């Protein structure tokens, strides 16, 4: 859409507004870096989550109990694997967009900003679905489900469950960082429109 009625002063004002609108503010950089850091730590925390417990198993009343080491690993549960993958993808994209933001500090085409908004949105959806999945499975492990005969696990594996909870909280903050990023980009678009 061509605008015909800008005088000289209007042109200068709009040009500075355009530079400020497209320029990457420090808030966006901080948010991207935070998102990168939080998702990275969340993925690593859950990825290396492992706990071994010695469980005494009695076969019969005469023999002493066998001490069997039982391991709980995050890779045993599909929901946790999905969580790690989702957080890794979000972390990689946060790093990529951070690099992009540094490269195009002054200006850049608006269409790139639109693409980044949409991919940010997909990261939000991915992260939130991972959070929901680990939250649900963690809840089952914490309380059990009597209707389905799924026993609780967290009374035995305390450290494992605590690490899952910590990772979940970190990923939630990372997802909130992405939501704030999208809101910031949209507000910038709105201020220029």
């Amino acid at each position, binding site marked *: 859409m061509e605008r015909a009625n800008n005088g000289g002063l209007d042109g200068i004002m709009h040009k500075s507004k355009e530079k400020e609108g497209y320029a990457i503010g420090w808030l966006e950089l901080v948010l991207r870096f935070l998102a990168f850091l939080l998702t990275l730590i969340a993925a690593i925390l859950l990825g290396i989550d492992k706990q071994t417990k010695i469980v005494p198993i009695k076969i019969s009343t005469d023999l002493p109990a066998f001490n069997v080491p039982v391991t709980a690993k995050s890779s045993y549960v599909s929901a946790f694997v999905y969580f790690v993958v989702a957080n890794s993808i979000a972390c990689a994209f946060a790093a990529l967009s951070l690099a992009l933001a540094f490269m195009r500090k002054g200006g850049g085409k608006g269409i790139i900003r639109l693409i980044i*908004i949409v991919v940010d949105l997909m990261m939000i959806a991915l992260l939130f679905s991972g959070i929901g999945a680990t939250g649900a499975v963690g809840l089952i492990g914490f309380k059990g489900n009597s209707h389905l005969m799924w026993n609780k696990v967290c009374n035995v594996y305390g450290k494992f469950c605590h690490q899952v909870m910590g990772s979940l909280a970190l990923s939630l903050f990372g997802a909130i960082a992405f939501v704030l990023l999208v809101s910031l980009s949209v507000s910038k678009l709105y201020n220029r429109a």
Partner: protein
Amino acid sequence: MSSMETEKGAVPTPQAPPVAPTDNKYRVVDVILRVLLLAASIASVVLMVTSKQTEIIVSPLGSRPNAAKFQNSPAFIYLVAALSVAGLYSIITALVSLSYMMKPIVAPKLFWILLIHDVLLLGIVAAATGTAGGVGYIGLKGNTHVRWGKICNVYDKFCRHVGASIIVSLFAAVVLVLLVFVNANSLYRRIPKY
């Protein structure tokens, strides 16, 4: 075009360009997507709510009927709640968007408000999809390491309903992403280009 500009009011605002006729096309797409979102939310909720299945379970104590219903798992309850909220939201915003479709000049604030709320709702619906998907997958395959048995070999109709509900809620999330894209595009097209 100049007549539309004088229509705007006493104070001439240099930043508001007159709406090009093709802007209405995006309004129509927006309303259609919101109606799709409503349909997907309703379908997902109905599928989940009607999924009750009763089977006779033979155990050493004797055979008794056991019912699998969505209330057994908090994950499925959350899916029903979240998708109901999404359905209500889609009705409200569809009406808002429809009312703005008739107007020749639309303030960009409309897109901004719709965008922010769409993003928030996307988080909720995506979480619902992931939650029910995670629990449903355990129900489908079981987990031998934790000794959680699968239930889908016994309750097949229940599993089919739950699976379909999850897929439809995934579709609702995709519709929300498209909605945000359409509104962001409308905002972007409003920017005066030099």
